[in-house]
Every structure is written in C-alpha cells, then in structure tokens.
C-alpha cells in the first residue's frame, strides 16, 4: 500500500506531533507515504476570503503535481483535506473557473485533469487498511481509558465522503479497536473556533471552552482530534480559557497518537511530549 502525502503547513509547524504520530503509525502498519514534491499551502479558509480563483489554483498546483503519480493523496489536516476536495468539486462544477485555473496552471507548465483522489487518514485506515489488520497490530490496548472522539467540522462538512455528517464513527471504531472507551459526545462535529481563537479571542475561546467542558462532563480523560487546528485551539488556549471561564485541564491528543500507543510505539516518537496540557494521563498504565 502506497499513498502520496500532503502534510500542509500546520503539520510542519504547530501540528508537528500529528505528522510524527501519523508517519509512525503508517510505517508500523506497513503503509508507505510519499510526500508530494514541493507542495504549497492549500489556501485554507483564509485565502478563499481573498481570491476565489487563486485559492483554487493553489490547490490546483498541488493536485497537478500529485496527478503525475497514480496514487491517492492523504491529507491529514482538515483544512487541507477540505481545501483540496472542494477545489476538485468546484473545478468540476464550474467550467468557467476551471478554464481560468487551467490556463493559469498552464502558464507554469502544469496540467490539471481532476483525476486524483484526496483522502483522509481515517478513511484510509478504516477502508483500505481495515479494522481487522489494525486490531492485529494492537500490542498494548488502552484498557480503562476514556476519550471524547472529536472530529471537528471540515472532514464531514460540507461533503460526507467517508463518514456520517451528524454522527461520524470512523475514529470511534479506531479508538475502540485500540481498546479505549468512547464517551457519548454530542459535540463531535461542532466548530472548535477555527482561526477566531487568535483573531477574535473573546468569541473564539468560548467555542473551544464549550467543547473541552462537555468532554470533561462526559467523563473523558482526553479529547482526541483529527485536525491540527482543533488540537492547537483546544490545547494551546487552555490558560486563556482558564482566565476567562474556568480551568478545564483537558489533554488534547491526535487519534494517531492514541492508536500508536496501543500499537506499542513510544510516547516520544508519537510526539506526545508536544502537548501543552500534559498528556501523561493517556500514558498511565504503560
């Protein structure tokens, strides 16, 4: 099994732990990831507010480079996952935008045909690798650990390509396979605050606080995320949340970190030390 890998800017920056744990887990599962050559920023949500066609062209350059190899692309960051998929969809639905973008790409000698599939690691783990194969690799199940599976918005919305939009289950299944218990979490797909935590903290912090508080109320020892921005917001702003609302003290980890632990990988190689709110509770019992 081999895939192209689109890390995106966050996984090289504040979301390093996601990249470390993702690569470690896929390596251990025997899945090869090849980083897309000279990839650029996906455009995220911010660029769409500046220029629509350019935003699609940013995605277009990455996709055009990826198209040279006949492999599916894995995009672990939710914003990248949506940005690339949305560009594909829009370029398919709107011929006039496609014509402009194709022309611009051609100016740089690139060709876009829209034939690459952009997928989320959850999708690949569940549907390609398979729960059975993963279960076989579980060496030290996370017995007794309780997590709040938190998917955030952009991997299930607006497109429901591999999971239910209201009650996604793919991560729940992986965490259960890792031996952990999932709490019933009604805020699974609620917004973490996105970039508002930084730009308008008086608004953004409340969103992050609501999610952390509910996870605690439901008895979770940690929130498990699939997105570097969710992780950053929920983990990084807890001191400000404590000042503005109350201290929640809730570790926020990536699903790949939890899965990696159960597969017997070390906390260090999974980047668990990079959590601002200590994730030691997840390590308890090992």
């Amino acid at each position, binding site marked *: 099994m081999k895939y192209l890998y689109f890390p995106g800017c966050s996984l090289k920056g504040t979301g390093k732990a996601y990249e470390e744990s993702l690569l470690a887990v896929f390596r251990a599962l025997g899945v090869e990831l090849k980083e897309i050559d000279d990839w650029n920023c996906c455009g995220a949500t911010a660029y769409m507010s500046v220029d629509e066609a350019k935003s699609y062209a940013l995605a277009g350059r990455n996709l055009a480079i990826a198209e040279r190899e006949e492999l599916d692309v894995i995009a672990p960051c939710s914003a990248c996952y949506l940005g690339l998929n949305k560009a594909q969809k829009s370029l398919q639905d709107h011929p006039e935008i496609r014509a402009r973008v194709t022309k611009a790409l051609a100016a740089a000698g690139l060709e876009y045909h829209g034939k690459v599939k952009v997928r989320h690691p959850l999708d690949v783990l569940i549907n390609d690798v398979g729960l059975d194969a993963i279960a076989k690799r579980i060496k030290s199940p996370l017995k007794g650990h309780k997590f709040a599976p938190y998917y955030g918005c952009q991997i299930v919305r607006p497109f429901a390509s591999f999971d*239910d939009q*209201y*009650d996604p289950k793919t991560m729940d299944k992986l965490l259960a396979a890792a031996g952990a218990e999932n709490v019933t979490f*009604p*805020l699974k797909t609620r917004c973490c605050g996105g970039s508002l935590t930084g730009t308008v903290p008086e608004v953004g912090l409340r969103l992050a606080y*609501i999610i952390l508080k*509910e996870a605690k109320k439901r008895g979770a020892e940690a929130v498990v995320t699939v997105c570097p921005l969710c992780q950053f917001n929920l983990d990084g702003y807890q001191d400000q949340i404590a000042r503005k609302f109350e201290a929640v003290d809730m570790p926020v980890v990536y699903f790949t970190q939890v899965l990696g632990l159960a597969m017997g990988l070390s906390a260090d190689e999974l980047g668990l030390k990079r959590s601002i709110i200590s994730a030691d509770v997840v390590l308890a019992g090992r």
Partner: protein
Amino acid sequence: MADNNANKQQPNGLPRIGFYICHCGSNIAGTIDVADVAKYAAGLPGVVVSRDYKYMCSDPGQEMIAQDIREHKLERLVVAACSPNLHEETFRKAAAKGGLNSFFFQMVNIREHASWVHEDKKAATAKAKDLARAAVYRVRFHKALEKQQVPVDPNVLVVGGGIAGIHAALTLANAGKKVTLVERESTIGGHMAAFDKTFPTLDCAACILTPKMSAVKSHPNITLWTYSEVSKVEGYVGNYKVTVKRKPRYVIEDLCVGCMECIDACVFKEPKFADKFNQGLGKRKPVYIDFPQATPKVVMIDPETCIQFKTGKCKKSCAEACDRKAIDFDQKEEVKELQVGAIILATGFKTFDAKKEPHYGYGKYPGVFTALEIERLVNASGPTSGEVVLRDGKHPKAVGIIHCVGSRDEKTNKWCSRVCCMYSLKLAHLIKEHSGAEVYNFYIDIRAAGKAYEEFYDKLLSEGVHFIRGRVAEVTDWAMTPEEEGKLVLRVEDTLAGFVRRVPVDMVVLATGLEPQADAQEVRRRFNIGCGNEGFFQERHPKLAPVNTFTDGIFIAGACQSPKDIPDTVAQAGAAAAEALVLIDAGHVELEPNTSHVVEEECCGCKSCVPLCPYTAITFDEAKKKAVINEVICKGCGVCAAACPSGSIRQNLFEDEEIFSEIEGVLGK
C-alpha cells in the same frame, strides 16, 4: 385574419386540405407570427384554405371550420393550436359537423411544443411552419376510421380502505353499484382510525369514522376484502379483470364473531409484542385485533410471534377457546378474480421516517416522539388511556413540537405536506389539555388555509401555546445551563425576534410529513397509471381532472394523489365515485381507432409480437399460424408494429406512409 384563399387551383390527385392556426389569445400569437404561418401554409401542396383565428376552439371557430369543409369541399383538415390532449376531440367534432370523417384530421401542437417553450419569435415561427408542413404532408394519407363501442361492466373496485376508499365505496354502493373494497391491512379505517381528534372542530375521529366503517361492512352492495392485495390488473376501460390475493389471517372470517375469547386464552398471559396500531407504544399478543372497532371485527394470528407457527408445539388454547372453530392454523393464501368496469385507487400515504433526520434524535433520545405516536398517547383508547407520559412514565412539563420534519426540505421531501401545521396545532391543544405542559410550536410558516382553520390557529394563540418561527437545528442532551440539565434542548432561531434561542423541554414531537406509500411505484405500474416526480399518483389535469388518471376507467382519491386533510380527501373520494358513475351509467365506451391489426397474408407466424404486447392483446391462432390482435384490448402503443419483422402489422393513424410523409414534411422545405 388574413385571406389566403383566393380560389386556388388544386393539383391533380391531391386531397383538398384546410389549414387553421389558432392565436390562443397571446399564448401562441405572442410568440409565433400566426398570419405568416397561415400564409405559408396556403402555399403548401393540397392546401386550398388557410386561416388564422383568435380562438379556434370557440364556437365561431369551429363553425368556421365546418362551413369551410362544406363550401370548399375540404377532404382533409389540419389545425395548429394547443395540445391534442385538450382539443383534439373538439376539432374532430368540427370535422364531423362539416361532413368529414373525424380522422381525416391532424392536430399540430404549436403551443406546448413551440410558443410556450421558445422566446425567439423568428425561430418559433419557423418551427411552427415546419410542424405545419409535416401535418399537411401527413394528413393526405389519413384514412376514414370509425370508433368502436364496447359495453362497460357496472361493478367497481375500490383499492384502499382509509377514509377515501370508505367514502368512495359507500357513495357508489348507495347509488346502487356493486363495489368490492380491497384493503391491505386487517381492518379498514386507515390512518384516520388511529387519530384521536380531528381539526379544526376537535370532534373525535372514531366517533365520525366508525359508523362509516360499519356501514361498509353491512352494506348489501359492498364486498369487503381486508388483509388482501391486488396482484394483477388486465383489460381496459369498462372491462378490467383484477386478481386479488387474500392473505391468510389464520382465522376463518365468516366464523369469527370477534368475541376475543381466543385472545384471553392465548398461552401468553400478558401482551408481549409491539402493537403496530399503537405505533409500538403498546403491546399485544400473537392473536390480536387492532382495536375494538376494527372492521371486520375478526381476530388475526401473527405467525412471526405465535408459538404454534414457530415451534408447532403450542397447546393451542386459543383454538380450544373458540366454540365456533374459527381458528385455522392451516389457512392458505386465496387468489380471487374480479370483473369490474372502473377502479378507484385510494391507497393513501405513509409518514416520513423520522430517523432520516438524525439531528432530531428520534430513536436516540426516548423523549422524542412522532406525531402519530402522540395521536395514540392522547387517545382515550390508546396505550396510556389518554395520559400524556414519557416512555419512562414521567409527565412532561414542557413539550416542543417541531414542524416540517421531512417537508419543505430538499434533502428529504421538497413539498409542503399540508396537514402538519393543522395537526400540530391540534396536538398542541390536546397535549396542553391532557398534561398542562408548556407547549412550544417551532414552525416555518403556519399554513391554515381551510374553512375555520385560521380561527383554530387563533384559538391556540389564545390558549397561550408558544409559537416560535424557526426551523429547529438540533435536539440534544448537551446542556449549557443548570436548568437545561436532564432536558432535551432545542436550538432554534426565533426569526421574528432575530436571535437564537435554546429551549429545554421534556418531550419533543416531530410533525412528520406525508410521503407516497413505499410501494407506490409498483402499484402505479400494476394499474398502468403515472406518478409525479415526488412519487404521488399523477392526476390527468391538476385543476380540471383531479381524480382522473391517464388510464381511462382508473380514478384516484385521497392522499395517494398528494398530501391532503380529511375534508379534501372526502371531497375527492366523492368526486372519484361520481366519475366512476359517469362511466358506468353511460353503459359503453368509445375506443380510439389507433389500434394495430395484422395483415394476415403477410404474417409469417414468427410470434415475436406476442410476448411484446404490454396489454396482452395479441394471441396466436395455432390453426392458421397467424398472430391475431384484439383491437378492443389494443391501446395503440405501436410496439408490435415496430417489432414485426415481416412488416405485416399495421397501426391505424401510424401507417408507414403517414409517418414517412410526416418526417419528410418536418425535414423538407
């Protein structure tokens, strides 16, 4: 009106043709230059008269045509106007009035096919000319044809025993017709039998329905077959042969008197299985009757739960208890055949599956109910004897009714289900009356457009029921404040106030919309009628033929045609019965002569046409080795004529020379 008729000389051999083009007010003349088309047609070979006129279908228009036929000795007639669906018959009559065989006429649809669908006047006019030319070329080859008359069987089949079917059957029976009413469930009554009260008068549904149910049962002109389904329909208007399957209920209907002693005697001492009639809120035994006034009042045995059926080792105490020996574990399905002249379909609706809107929590939170469940809960003969309680037995202090669940939503059903606003108001009233709870209605628009409906809305407003205008986003147990703990919270924008509210309640009622029955497509195929895009049965005309279908002799009534409340359903059922009476009392029907026939000497006896005929009108004469078409059954679809390898099947009005000359006409200049 232009005069294009300066005594034209007629080329030898061509029949003398009259061409007429209608303005249809501005419907046609607004887009097509009708005078120009008339002038053009005047120059076509054979055309001796060509006129345009404001309303060709009017009396003067028809009279003009008849007079021209006489004066100009016309032998063929072409009218370019609207759809033949509307006025073909009108102009056929005008032709006959002038002394011409009605089938020496061809109609051109330049309204639906040109003026209504185009904006470019020049192009639309050119298209009208092309179509006119095609008809002029074709009509030359038309032959004189006669309509055939066949008698109509006076008996009627009504399918579906809800209020629509009941009302239609009773109307016909009271008019002296023999009716067979076929119902799929074990009792008639349909959805209405499950309702508590009816809006806007709040009279009890059972009180007004059950007398009609027993009238059906006792009427000498009605044969009632419940737990039965139509499996096959053959024949044609006035002469349908219908096959009905009578499913085994394991109780001999003629012997059972509905004493229910068998139910008491059942080895299950307590009711244990979900009671479908009570929406699963109550329990029943394997031997049961849906409700006390079920009609016919005959018990049923459910083989899925009965021990005798599952193991064969029950002591059969029910059978022992029956002194009339009505219980028959070996009962088999029966197949019956019926001969009827007309069929009324009143197959009703189903409600939207609330689980398809998962964010409303139906099936996830026990406090969430469907409207039909609440109908049973507030009903004095329901599972709680009319007490409004939650599934855990607690009394709700606040209740939220969410409107438009599975209605007005492109993700589920686009249409407005018409009845939900009113039944939600009714349930709001009943819940408040029965429980004293605070009741909130979450609506998008209140649609109370019926007699005394707005007044009912006004009554609810005065009762202090809350009306919050907004579609609820979510029902959740996620609490933000102490008073929300342990409650179901509804998030909604109060669109009239302009801000979002969170409303905590104990009970949520989902006002589920109305949908076509799950097997509506199968049923429509069986009866050879159409369905609209949304899956409801298609009426012949939305305004002027609301109970007719495109198949003569088959009528529709009630919610199978579109969502409807009881008053409208009953009105439509009466209309369907009247249409059936018109057909029956005429005594005969005229059949279109557009049928196929076999030119015997050319038929090679290959039989390829026989299985193709969708109306089983073709048989094979083994003695002569030739195919034979029953022209009474033939619907003129043309499949056989197209498929016949020897070209020996011809179809009236679609002869080769007619079609080829029409094609030449439409393509040529």
